[in-house]
């Protein structure tokens, strides 16, 4: 049996500074890491520690991998000091993935904010690979300010598909920054769309407060709990249900998640904390 503690070394071949606090590491693992979009990996900085992150690249690519990381704690502080050529470690992939088969032929809604865009970019790029499989894809994205928007260079390309709608909003436009798209909370963008919520799926990922209110708003519109897919963030320390840090009732966020339907976890405690 494969030892899930073992680390695959990965060389950083490029770094994209997406925003002041967010950067994307482009990695070339020694061995290809085959994952399904929505799954996560444990990324370690040698001698410092490791943490769970979702790849932000398409799962149709396995020889290289993008991982988008926000500077928000001890480990990520070090991640933000790495430079091209350095080697980091990968373990995984772990956990559940987005059920693409259930999205096929549907009008899919994707709602994301902040660094929650990382797994959603992976999902989105994976969907674009077979874009005709889906009736339509609506991607709603929020950021605090124009400066905080990530994947800036790519979004123009994302708008060029017939059945894809990509809308962006910022919470506010500080003096000195320019913005010609929406200014509202990301949930405000829901007013601009017209999707029948009855049997269509929606995917939500972002900061806990955005996920909570995003989920509540989608339920209000008429989305069914079993059609709402959430990427939960808990302390996934080991990745395979052993360390118990991420336990949510009888579920492990790492093993049974990170992708849950709202229906699965609605009765568990403190899911948004």
């Amino acid at each position: 049996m494969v030892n899930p503690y073992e680390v695959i070394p990965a060389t950083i071949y490029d770094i994209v500074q997406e925003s002041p606090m967010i950067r994307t590491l482009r990695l070339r693992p020694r061995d290809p890491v085959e994952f399904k979009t929505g799954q996560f990996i444990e990324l370690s900085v040698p001698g410092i520690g490791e943490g769970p992150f979702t790849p932000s690249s398409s799962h149709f690519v396995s020889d290289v991998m993008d991982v988008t990381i926000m500077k928000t704690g001890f480990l990520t502080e070090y991640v933000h000091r790495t430079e091209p050529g350095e080697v980091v470690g990968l373990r995984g992939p772990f956990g559940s993935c987005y059920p693409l088969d259930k999205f096929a032929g549907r009008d899919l809604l994707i709602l994301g904010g902040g660094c929650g865009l990382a797994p959603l970019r992976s999902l989105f790029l994976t969907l674009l690979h077979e874009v005709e499989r889906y009736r339509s894809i609506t991607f709603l994205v929020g950021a605090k300010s124009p400066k905080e928007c990530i994947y800036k260079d790519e979004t123009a390309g994302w708008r060029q598909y017939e059945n894809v709608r990509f809308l962006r909003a910022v919470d506010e436009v500080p003096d000195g920054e320019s913005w010609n798209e929406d200014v509202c909370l990301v949930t405000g963008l829901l007013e601009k769309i017209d999707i029948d919520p009855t049997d269509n799926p929606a995917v939500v990922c972002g900061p806990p407060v955005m996920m909570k209110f995003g989920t509540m708003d989608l339920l209000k519109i008429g989305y069914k709990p079993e059609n709402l897919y959430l990427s939960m963030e808990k302390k996934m320390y080991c990745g395979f249900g052993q360390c118990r840090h991420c336990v949510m009732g009888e579920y492990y966020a790492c093993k049974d998640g990170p992708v849950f339907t709202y229906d699965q976890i609605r009765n568990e405690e403190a899911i948004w904390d």
Partner: protein
Amino acid sequence: MEVLAGVEEFKSFITDLIDIKPRKYSEIIVPARAPDDPEGFYSLTSLRPGIEFQLECHRTADPVKVLFYLFRERVTGRDHPGGERLIAGVKACDIKGMQLLDRAMINDDFTDPAYSDWRSRTTIISSDCTTLHSTCHCNMTGGGPWSEAGFDLNLSRVGNEYLITSGSEKGEDLLGLVKDAVNCRNAGPADLEQVKAARVSLNAELEARNGRVGYADFIEGIRSMDSGGWQDASAGCVGCGACTNICPTCYCLLLNDESSEKEFIKERSYDSCQLAGYATVAGGGTPRPLMRDRFRNRYLCKLDLIKRNLQIFGCTGCGRCIEACVAGIDIRKVVTGTTGLEVPASGTGSEKTVFQGRGV
């Protein structure tokens, strides 16, 4: 077929194993009392000539978990061609703890390389308890002070002899050595009756102390007790984590990165859900910010969640957490206190006893 061997002869046999050439066991670990330890306090001790040890009484202060799931050990690139170990005098609570760890650590989805390594090269001699520690309460967790499985050999005291039961191939091998070295006689019905009587009698003593109730009766109470109840129950708890570290079934781990320039190295060490940072994610969010939340989590985990994950109670009733607690918190009182029910005294309460489904 069970056999009997004299107590002193059997202990000499164990001691002599140190010197057998070629060496059968690289290490022999027994319960022994250090000269400065109080009466009735035994710890797992590496057997050396001259050490006074005993193979019965009650549980050791430290759980045998510490010999299989080390406080800190390397889990990547392991190269451990070590020899076979023998642990003797292991009690039922620890055997049950190992059964839980086996399920968690060696299953279809996952094998912990270090745990399975230690496990595969260890022979276990368990023994029926003959005395009780003040914190013992295995009767409340669906068990009793003896083992029926999970050992290689088991010892039950009968007069001046041990009735020896084999529970595995390793046990059969070792029993062969016993028979070569010690005068043994085959067990008769009267011997088996005596073993049964001793078990029933010690279990009755446990029930007299703890009541004839099981934790299973309180799961609903644990699930439904409100935050005020947990606030009261956790009063005094300082969140030190002693209870989880000493627990024979707790296995929450931290993965420490000890990588060098040459290679990635991971070591795992114990973590405790009682520590404030346990479930905290980057940015500071945590589902259990208060001590009472973390305190409650331990009870939920032991008696409800682990059962749902591994189909086995997370508490074996060894009572080490009670002994270790600086605040004197007693899991028996916390659990029975979750419902308004009076805990029935011996012989007056529910008829759900440990003897259900167990041949004694």
